[in-house]
């Protein structure tokens, strides 16, 4: 069983090192791949120093393009499972074994680390909380089952999902649209309870105006993915 821990990072020099060390402490010997989205700070240097391999994008791709680059490499290198954690330290690597174990036990294509399955959804801004409630309602009939934390980026996928995502993955705000991509193929996902933390360093780039753009963009993306024909593939 080959597992890769994937960390997309953009200007995360303050947190990415400790995230890598935490992953290595929880899963010694497991390869950690940082996908650097053309950071302007020392993210690449810090990541390498902490012992991760770095896939460095020569130009800024956006979160979805950055994660997809990691999925593509992982698929080409023959990994069976990939667990993605964010580079800002919000995702606690102690839950990676739970995500992996659930992927293997349930045989589902994707496992989402959710703040809301058993927890109280701590460390969620008002804007994000509203977006989560909104998208829960939208996604419920589309997915045919409830999803508690559709914006969570703490995600594990198996090789089947990896193959799909290496060809078809939303480029800007991937989490919610990725669920629809999976649903179109009748793939299954399971949520497991995790606790999330505050970001360890840096600042979120999400402003109230961007939140509105995010909701509109993702809403459109969800419906486009439902209607999309798969003729043209990158």
């Amino acid at each position: 069983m080959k597992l890769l821990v994937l960390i997309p990072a953009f200007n995360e020099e303050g947190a990415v090192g400790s995230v890598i060390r935490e992953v290595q402490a929880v899963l010694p010997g497991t390869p950690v791949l940082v996908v650097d989205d053309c950071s302007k700070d020392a993210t690449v240097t810090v990541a390498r120093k902490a012992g991760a391999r770095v896939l460095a994008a020569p130009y800024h791709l956006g979160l979805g393009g950055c994660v997809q680059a990691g999925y593509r490499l992982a698929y080409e290198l023959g990994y069976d499972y990939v667990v993605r954690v964010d580079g800002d330290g919000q995702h606690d690597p102690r839950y990676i074994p739970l995500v992996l174990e659930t992927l293997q036990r349930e045989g589902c294509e994707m496992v989402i680390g959710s703040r809301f399955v058993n927890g109280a959804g701590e460390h969620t801004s008002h804007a994000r909380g509203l977006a989560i409630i909104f998208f829960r309602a939208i996604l419920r009939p589309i997915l045919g089952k409830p999803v508690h934390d559709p914006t969570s980026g703490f995600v594990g996928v198996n090789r089947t999902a990896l193959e799909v995502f290496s060809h078809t993955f939303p480029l800007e705000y991937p989490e919610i649209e990725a669920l629809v991509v999976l649903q179109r193929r009748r793939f299954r996902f399971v949520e497991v309870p995790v606790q999330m933390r505050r970001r360890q360093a840096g600042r979120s780039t999400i402003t109230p105006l961007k939140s509105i753009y995010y909701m509109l963009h993702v809403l459109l993306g969800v419906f486009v993915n439902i209607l999309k024909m798969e003729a043209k593939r990158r």
Partner: protein
Amino acid sequence: MNQMLNVLTVFSILLLALVLVSVRRARIRVEYSVSWLLAAALLLVISQWPGLLTRLPAWLGVSDAALALVMVCGGIFLVVLYRLSLVISDLKDSNVALIQRVAILEYRLESSKEQSNG
């Protein structure tokens, strides 16, 4: 109305000239000039065919020839803009795929170098 048609004639000739000069200087690729050339040619035809403009308002369900002309011009340029959006989207997809491929190849190259260095 004649003055409006004269203005349209001048505008469409200027547009034709601008696009042709840009193609000649290789600032616009031939395949992307086609939409603009067609749009300019269509406007030129309308401007030189006053009979068409007198019938247009009835066809479009408006009372004014000027408004009909605005609607036709708007429609033509919407089609051109739509075509450009298709081109831009395709280029964006290609760019993302290329950037990802370059990153992956660099990663593999570095890994090979490290392996060969022991």
